[in-house]
């Protein structure tokens, strides 16, 4: 009898591993598809948006990036409804194909110089399709895995789905890194950046074949066989006060805080290292990849732990330590790469200046000044200043574009790796248990719809807007300081580069407080 029981248990575990493997691979690919756009934001800005101020071009891409996130809740509603009506399996097959197709097509869109405004328009439409697909995918995969898992191990098993978001970002960075290193910088800037988009179609093909053979979730199949599926999941989820109050609680007490911690630890950290610390893009991608890889196992650890001590405590502790630690962490990141703290080897400085004809304006020219500096600790700085010289000598001089690239030494690289690792560790605390937490809040018949919306508003809207809002706050502080300096007044901000962090800190603090008072450690069980 015992042996029969053990054999059955082993067979169930094996079947669960297959379910999780097939679901996770597909979800990982969707995250990969979604994040290569963000990881390549800087280069996409130069390809698809009108030339001019580079910060404006960068913000444009962030806005498109945000648009991709903002549309996610609509995908959650559309595909969530489908998932609760016809089933989880078919719905997330559709989202996989939609995402793969849109990603591949982004890699084919000609740039702005070739087709003008059609280029950013097409990219925007495809980005919106990606957002819609992702909005449908995650809730489906999390629900599907949770509905296969035993209640006492739901945190552990769903944590494998939670890994996929960070793993997708990791794979995107690795693919970009491999593409960058396999060709010259010019070739990558010219066409090589398209390769990571094209690679997606192969991965989606493999995932489609794996997922095709999967069965419908047993809980949903049972509900469907009993004729108890919802006829109007949207109305039952959001028009029913009893359920809607839990949707709001999930959003404000959990996913909102989790979303900003996720995007600060992974995207804002990357953006800060590249654009504020001016670390070389290749080095930045490399160190981010190492930090992500080191922290990834903790998703499973915290998922497992949440089955034992409850989900609430772990998630809220993650938000609390994050909001307390962000400013010291970012100050340390800034100072580790601050050239004012380093000693320059003046004899090693190389200066070069070239004037070339401006290919876009007749009789105008571009002066490029390059300064290379070395520091005693091995840090290297390359500063390229481009100044457009108008054909008319009386014309107002254009503002010089300055691009700094800092190549950091090994010690500073490891300092940054550990500082990013700590942030991703916070992410694993808030994100590891959240799929199980959300699934347990809602009943089977409207679970896909009900859990997807707060998840994607929390992550897509609150989290997705983080880079744009934080950049705006930091830029505002920097400009205020510059204006004060010009007027010989005291500087209003001592650390303008840290001002952007107020957004995640405030949002996480509100979410922590709501979660602390209103969420129960053992959520309402929703097995039916």
């Amino acid at each position, binding site marked *: 009898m015992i042996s029969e029981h053990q054999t059955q248990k082993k067979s169930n575990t094996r079947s669960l591993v297959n379910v999780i493997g097939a679901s996770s691979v597909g979800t990982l690919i969707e995250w990969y598809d979604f994040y290569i756009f963000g990881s390549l934001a800087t280069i996409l800005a130069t390809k698809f948006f009108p030339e001019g101020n580079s910060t404006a071009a960068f913000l444009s891409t962030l806005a498109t990036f945000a*648009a991709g996130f903002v549309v996610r809740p609509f995908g959650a509603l559309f595909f969530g409804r489908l998932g609760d009506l016809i089933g989880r399996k078919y719905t997330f097959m559709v989202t996989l194909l939609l995402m793969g197709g849109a990603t591949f097509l982004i890699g084919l869109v000609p740039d702005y110089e070739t087709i003008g405004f059609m280029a950013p328009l097409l990219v925007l439409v495809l980005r919106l399709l990606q957002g819609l697909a992702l909005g449908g995918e995650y809730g489906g995969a999390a629900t599907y895995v949770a509905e296969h898992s035993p209640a006492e191990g739901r945190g552990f098993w769903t944590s494998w789905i939670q890994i996929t978001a960070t793993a997708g970002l990791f794979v995107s960075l690795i693919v970009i890194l491999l593409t960058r290193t396999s060709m010259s910088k010019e070739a990558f800037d010219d066409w090589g950046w398209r390769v990571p988009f094209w690679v997606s179609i192969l991965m989606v093909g493999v995932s489609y074949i794996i997922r095709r053979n999967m069965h419908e979730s047993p809980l949903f199949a049972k509900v469907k066989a009993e004729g108890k599926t919802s006829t109007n999941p949207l109305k039952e989820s959001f028009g029913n*006060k009893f359920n*809607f109050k839990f949707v*709001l*609680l999930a959003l*404000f007490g959990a996913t909102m805080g989790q979303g900003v911690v996720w995007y600060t630890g992974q995207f804002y950290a990357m953006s800060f290292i590249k654009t504020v610390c001016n670390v070389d893009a290749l080095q930045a991608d490399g160190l981010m990849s190492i930090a992500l890889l080191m922290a990834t196992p903790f998703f499973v650890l915290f998922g497992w732990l949440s089955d034992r001590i409850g989900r609430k405590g772990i998630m809220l502790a993650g938000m609390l330590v994050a909001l307390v630690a962000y400013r010291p962490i970012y100050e340390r990141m800034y100072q580790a790469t601050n050239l004012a703290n380093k000693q320059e080897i003046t004899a090693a400085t190389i200066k070069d200046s070239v004037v070339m004809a401006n290919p876009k304006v007749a009789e105008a020219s571009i002066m490029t000044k390059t300064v290379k500096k070395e520091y005693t600790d091995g840090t290297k700085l390359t500063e390229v200043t481009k100044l457009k010289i108008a054909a008319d000598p009386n014309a107002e001089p254009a503002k010089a574009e300055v691009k700094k690239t800092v190549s950091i030494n090994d010690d500073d690289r490891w300092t940054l790796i550990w500082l990013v690792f700590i942030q991703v560790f916070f992410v694993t605390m808030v994100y590891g248990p959240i799929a199980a937490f959300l699934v347990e809040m809602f009943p089977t018949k409207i679970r896909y719809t009900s859990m997807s919306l707060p998840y994607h508003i929390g992550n897509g809207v609150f989290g997705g807007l983080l880079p744009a809002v934080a950049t*705006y706050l930091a830029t505002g502080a920097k400009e205020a300081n510059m204006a004060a300096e010009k007027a010989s007044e005291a500087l209003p901000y001592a650390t303008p580069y840290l001002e952007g962090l107020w957004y995640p800190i405030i949002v996480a603090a509100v979410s922590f407080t709501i979660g602390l008072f*209103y969420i129960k450690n053992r959520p309402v069980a929703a097995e039916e």
Partner: protein
Amino acid sequence: MNTIKRLLGLVWLGLAALSGYYGITALGIPKLTSGKTDDLVFGIIIVFVLMPIIVGGLVTFGLYALQGEYNDETN
């Protein structure tokens, strides 16, 4: 605990008003009126997406909390 939960409802209502005011005056309007296309997109997202979610969501949440919807006996 239930009394605290109810009273905190007032805090969420106040927070909704405060974030709506600052979100629109400090973030939304400056972006919408800057005259730059990029700012316009950002301003639209702030004013028409983020703010309604924050304000509408927190007002509803605050009202539910005040009505005792989140009290232990009703959960």
